[in-house]
């Protein structure tokens, strides 16, 4: 302790820690060195005519010595004698090796014993290995016989008196952790969400209301021209509600137009030519996409005359009843952007996507033909991933079908372009998280939330701090 505090003062002393090992006898070991091993004592206690085993066991070294003496083949037991088992000597004399070895150690000559012998004695708890630590202390470069205590921090008194000039200050220990300040934290997914909101606002997009997790099949599917027999409307993919099971309030004149378009066609379309059922459209569900909110927004836009172009966005929760795995949960967040205006083209959609993704730091884009029930043309958006050295899908997009827009009452030459992507995927890539359960839900490790850095979407992250790269 004294040496350590001297060392803390700086170059006052130089101390070298040396340690040596030494073998010593335990208390039991001492006893045996004096009196002889238990097995030897047992041996010597047996007279030529032998001794009843029960009597032997009552002797002080009896129990311990008996089994050892047996295994050394110094004694034997005759179980056939009339009055109980009797112990006899098997040899005439014995060499008490154990006592001899212990005496060597006591005499400071432990090195004369082999490794195996020492370890055996240690197993029997007769020997222990002691470590002796010593400090060799010598004068340091700043040796002095007077001690001046090192300061840790500057104080107001030192500043006003100027005494800081004459005091030594303790150097910083950069390997100490330091005390973390008590602070609050924002969730990384929601930090990314804030950034996406900023991007949309910068591009002039207005936020749509999406505060309804519950939606009717009508707005979620039918209004989007998704047919009632479509597999996505299966129980396997969608969460339907037991209570309340049906949506009671639907705009009936609009519903009639949608019904006609599905079953008979119209507005330039052949339609699907099947029997459309109102009951099916009334079924309540947990929305499978926020496109249902976009449909509501467009329906309200159509009511305003004359038509005013609009740009809408939303980022909110959606629900899918699919197979869950490392990258899929039943709940996730969808980002959606919509532009409604006269004369919009596929080229415009690509242009808007380019600006949007540039704000995410993604500049190399390619577009691939795709299929969605409610958009035509449809495009999947791909970007080049430098790390994986391949093109990966970053979003889905398209022009809404006329069968969706015209029954709403939007003018015929108004086109609506739209695109969407999930919020979780770019977040997991940005924050180097491989399993979505480590990001969303109550099982998330709060340390991850405490440690997650600033969200800068348009800047490449440094090397990932945890595990494998995304």
């Amino acid at each position: 302790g004294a040496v350590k505090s001297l060392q803390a003062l700086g170059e006052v002393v130089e101390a070298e820690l040396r340690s040596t090992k030494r073998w010593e006898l335990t208390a039991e070991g001492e006893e045996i060195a004096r009196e002889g091993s238990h097995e030897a004592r047992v041996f010597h206690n047996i007279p030529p005519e032998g001794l009843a085993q029960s009597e032997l066991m009552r002797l002080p070294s009896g129990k311990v010595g008996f089994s050892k003496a047996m295994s050394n083949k110094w004694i034997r037991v005759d179980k056939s004698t009339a009055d109980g088992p009797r112990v006899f000597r098997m040899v005439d004399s014995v060499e008490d090796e154990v006592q001899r070895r212990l005496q060597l150690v006591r005499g400071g000559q432990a090195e004369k014993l082999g490794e195996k012998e020492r370890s055996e004695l240690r197993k029997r708890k007769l020997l222990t290995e002691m470590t002796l630590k010593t400090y060799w202390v010598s004068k340091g470069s700043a040796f002095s016989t007077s001690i001046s205590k090192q300061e840790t921090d500057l104080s107001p008194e030192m500043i006003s008196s100027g005494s800081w000039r004459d005091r030594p200050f303790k150097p910083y220990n950069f390997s100490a952790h330091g005390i973390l300040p008590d602070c609050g934290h924002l969730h990384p997914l929601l930090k990314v969400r804030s950034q996406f909101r900023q991007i949309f606002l910068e591009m002039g997009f207005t936020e749509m209301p999406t505060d309804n997790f519950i939606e009717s099949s009508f707005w979620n599917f039918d209004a989007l021209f998704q047919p009632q027999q479509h597999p996505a409307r299966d129980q396997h993919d969608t969460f339907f509600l037991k209570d309340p099971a049906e949506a009671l309030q639907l705009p009936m004149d609009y519903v009639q137009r949608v019904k006609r378009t599905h079953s008979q066609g119209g507005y330039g379309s052949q339609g699907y030519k099947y029997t459309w059922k109102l009951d099916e459209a009334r079924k309540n569900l947990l929305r499978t996409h926020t496109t249902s909110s976009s449909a509501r927004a467009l329906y309200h836009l159509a009511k305003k005359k004359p038509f005013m172009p609009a740009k809408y966005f939303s980022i909110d929760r959606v629900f899918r009843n699919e197979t869950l795995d490392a990258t899929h949960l039943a709940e996730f967040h969808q980002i959606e952007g919509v532009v409604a205006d006269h004369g919009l083209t596929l080229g415009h959609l690509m242009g808007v996507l380019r600006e949007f993704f540039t704000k995410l730091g993604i500049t190399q884009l390619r577009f691939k033909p795709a299929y969605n029930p409610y958009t035509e043309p449809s495009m999947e958006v791909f970007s080049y991933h430098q790390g994986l050295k391949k093109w990966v899908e970053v979003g889905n997009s398209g022009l809404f079908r006329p069968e969706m827009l015209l029954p709403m009452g939007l003018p015929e030459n108004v086109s609506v372009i739209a695109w969407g992507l999930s919020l979780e995927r770019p977040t997991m890539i940005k924050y180097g998280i491989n399993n979505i359960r480590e990001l969303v839900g109550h099982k998330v490790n709060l340390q991850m939330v405490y440690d997650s850095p600033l969200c800068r979407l348009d800047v490449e992250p440094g090397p990932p701090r945890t595990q494998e790269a995304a």
Partner: protein
Amino acid sequence: MPTVSVKRDLLFQALGRAYTDEEFDELCFEFGLELDEITSEKEIISKEQGNVKAEGASDVVLYKIDVPANRYDLLCLEGLVRGLQVFKERIKAPVFKRVMPDGEIQKLIITEETAKIRPFAVAAVLRNIKFTKDRYDSFIELQEKLHQNICRRRALVAIGTHDLDSLSGPFTYTAKRPSDIKFKPLNKTKEYTACELMNIYKTDNHLKHYLHIIENKPLYPVIYDSNGVILSMPPIINGDHSKITVNTKNVFIECTGTDFTKAKVVLDNIVTMFSEYCENQFTVEATEVVFPNGKSYTFPELSYRKEMVRADLINKKVGIRETPENLAKLLTRMCLKSEVIGDGNQIEVEIPPTRADVMHACDIIEDAAIAYGYNNIQMTLPKTYTIANQLPLNKFTELLRLDMAATGFTEVLTFALCSQEDIADKLGVDISATKAVHISNPKTAEFQVARTTLLPGLLKTLAANRKMPLPLKLFEISDVVIKDSSKGSAFFPGRCAEIFARGQSIGKLGVLHPDVITKFELTMPCSSLEINIEPFL
């Protein structure tokens, strides 16, 4: 997305050239397909059942190609090859014709008993067809793919294909009591009644999924020929008597179902794909179907529809400037044969029976864009001028979040779905009092209800983070789903309060009741606050 598995070399042979994997991948990207996986039968078995079972399996290279869900004409090798060859202008799209037979026309008579169970049926004949093992496999596989997709797992339409030479028309499609139906089904060695079959197939991994379609009905659909031979009991199984083999020369195809439009589309699809192998290529023999009301139809329809599209409309919607002639060429490459007519601005587009997916001009416009090449289109920005507005609730939430974090609380994001227990029992409340929204058929308890309060989510987060140093201060600002306002006593008596702002009750705060704490598997005292922020907007 449906996946089609084709033998790579067979594909290249049909395409007339070989591709590297990268080249083919690129071709798929252009056309709107995806080369999902390159594998072999051996690899597939190896992955699923281990290397030992895979011994001796074929290692012929297979391409697994993802196809858009609405393109039934690309669901088999024949269709894929045709689509790609026309796209690359190596062949012209075939013209399909329905022809009358030399002798008597095959007839399928529908009786009124089918009306309540499976009212519609259509039929056609492929005459003098030449199958090879590969073509035969492809034929069977296409039926499976159609069953899984457009047929909605046989509920909407079921397909039956039969060796016409083993049968004798006219055919009758009727519905009978299960005990009255007896026949030897495909791959069985003796006859069974329909009741027995329903039992047997309960353990058949493939067929058990379709039994429910007719199981509980009083009458089952069944098709007979004029000699009383049963062709099939749709949608379950065909008869063994009329099964087709590689040597079959004349195929009788019947599609029955509950959706007339889809039945017609499915029939057209099968015959257009496989009439390629008929002696009189791309012709299909007509069949007459008589409905219970006496009305007679001839199938397959194989209708070609004409639609007029203005060239400038296509240019405008895509954002390109092609001449009408060029646009017509682009469309023809997508199997939509087109030509410029009239004033030079109109394009007459012929929509073949293989393109049932084309419903509106926008479908035609998409095809023009694909043929032009999406990545050749110039990117432009719309001139749409708008002022952005934030949703007041979200704007307020963002401000509140920042200040909550500044106060030293950590934000969490919990699930909106949870168990009934979480929002009721564990909070000392009866579930009926919560007025929660209930999910039907939840897979696990975690999906029973939508949360009516944010509290359980926060408490579960605490329970999952027991090892973290104290204090733990959590917050969440998000939506809950309630049908009505809920009442509850989750708090320790005398240690809670209702919060009023501007005379309105907006929430509660307090120390949680020990019962609530233990039910969430926590040990430390816990206090919470929950308010509705909407009144502040």
